[in-house]
């Protein structure tokens, strides 16, 4: 009650002040910026971003050494590093990682190219939109992993079916995002291009594709994660090599440390992919002044 009374007194003086009584108006700074504290230490961005993962690693290691998990349930970070050393010295880790990387790279290149090509086709031509887009939308709803048995019947168990599945997994996210972005390109800029004599190919190259770039990069982010998902499943089911195969083998020999090692590699690859896209965005989207976060 006393608090409320104090509050009311503090906020209502202007309205209840007797007429003619000068009322001081409290002035505030318009921006919500906090005053700069003196002697604040600036920590580099990279260091700040590393702190979180490092804390998780420490907690993980402690949980293992303190016996929260058995070594069969969860391998500790140190055990994972040991497993990495072991497999590396036997030449197993490098070869399988390279094979997976190669499959993913091939699938990614083909899939991203196909996604962009289809998006341009559907984004620019009514025929493409009416004819192709519904087909893609339907195909997109089919779970890619459900295709694995069929793909084995069609293409056997060689390299092609794996690359095919990965490519398929990359095509859809790139297509969806690029297509939507092409439709979102500012008509006013297209008109400006037309009045200054850009031909259709010129319009596509100079106005429409650059305008769709932000959307494409979002699609690329999805594709870079999706490709590994498809890769690991494809390799667990019908492969004699690759990271997915390594996980599968580890299961039959109860090598939890190797499973965790493979998962850690996926996580690191994910981080690398994210860094690549971030760098791409920094160079390709310099012209943009977007919301940078408050």
């Amino acid at each position, binding site marked *: 009650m006393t608090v409320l009374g104090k509050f009311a007194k503090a906020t209502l003086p202007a309205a209840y002040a007797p007429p003619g009584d000068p009322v001081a108006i409290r002035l505030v700074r318009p921006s919500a910026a906090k005053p700069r504290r003196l002697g604040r230490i600036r920590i580099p961005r990279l260091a700040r971003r590393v702190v979180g993962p490092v804390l998780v690693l420490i907690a993980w290691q402690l949980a293992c050494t303190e016996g929260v998990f058995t070594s069969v349930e969860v391998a500790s970070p140190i055990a994972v590093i040991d497993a990495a050393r072991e497999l590396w010295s036997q030449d197993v880790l490098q070869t399988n990682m390279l094979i997976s990387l190669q499959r993913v790279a091939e699938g990614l290149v083909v899939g991203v190219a196909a996604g962009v090509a289809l998006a341009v086709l559907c984004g620019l031509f009514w025929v493409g939109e009416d004819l192709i887009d519904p087909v893609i939308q339907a195909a997109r709803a089919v779970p890619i992993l459900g295709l694995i048995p069929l793909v084995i019947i069609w293409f056997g168990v060689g390299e092609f079916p794996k690359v095919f599945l990965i490519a398929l997994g990359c095509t859809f996210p790139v297509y969806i995002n690029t297509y939507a972005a092409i439709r979102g390109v500012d008509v006013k800029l297209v*008109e400006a291009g037309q009045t200054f004599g850009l031909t259709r190919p*010129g319009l596509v190259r*100079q106005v429409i594709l650059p305008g769709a770039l932000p959307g494409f990069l979002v699609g690329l982010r999805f594709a870079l994660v999706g490709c590994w998902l498809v890769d690991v499943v494809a390799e667990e089911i019908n492969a004699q090599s690759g990271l997915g195969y390594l996980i599968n083998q580890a299961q039959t020999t109860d090598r939890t440390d190797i499973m965790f090692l493979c998962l850690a590699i996926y996580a690191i690859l994910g981080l690398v992919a994210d860094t690549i896209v971030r760098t791409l965005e920094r160079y390709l989207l310099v*012209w943009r002044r977007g919301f940078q976060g408050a």
Partner: protein
Amino acid sequence: MTTEVQAAANTAVFASGVTRTFAGRAVLRGLGISIAPGEFVALLGRSGTGKSTLLRILGGLDPDYGGEVLVPQRRAVVFQEPRLLPWQRVLPNVALGLKPTGPNERGVLRQRSLSALSEVGLASHARAWPVTLSGGEAQRVALARALVREPQLMLLDEPFGALDALTRARMHRLLQDLCARHRPAVLLVTHDVDEAILLADRVLVLTNGVITVDLQVRLDRPRDRGHAEFTALRTRLLEELGAAAE
């Protein structure tokens, strides 16, 4: 085809019987207009009378019109907003759509774009991103982009409407300078009567889909807004525009 070219020999713009209908609503109803090479024409009209529609037809942005329209090959448009490509720096924006015709043309085009930029006083901004420019600067870049292709016809769609009064006055002087030097035919769409009298050789008023007023402005440049004839013209044009309101 040849007869059309001959008809247009001493005119930069020829249009007659131009009609344009939007969803059953006739905006242009048999409008006729002709502009001589190097002539500066201002087109006034109340908002919604079809000024911009006419400009878009002349600029080749609207193919769904009726009647006869002839314009030069080399045209340039300056819109109300600068419409610069945000993903290209200022210089390539100026050079937009210019095609190199020979092996050494690329450097020549670059040079031409740079000199167009320096004509509008922005040579030092050649490598800037459009997002970093002020409204007036961006519009000057748009003007350079129009100039660099040595247009025989310049179409200006309320190009200074979004600028503050001071910047607008500077842009008026710049535009007069540039027009005196390059002598393109100009069609300036505006709703600012003073701007029209200040800049144009001839002022047209568009009312109910046709040109209802066609006035020569016989005042020496630079023009003085306080001059008696200027004031008389302003009164006359404002009356014409006001009459259309009733």
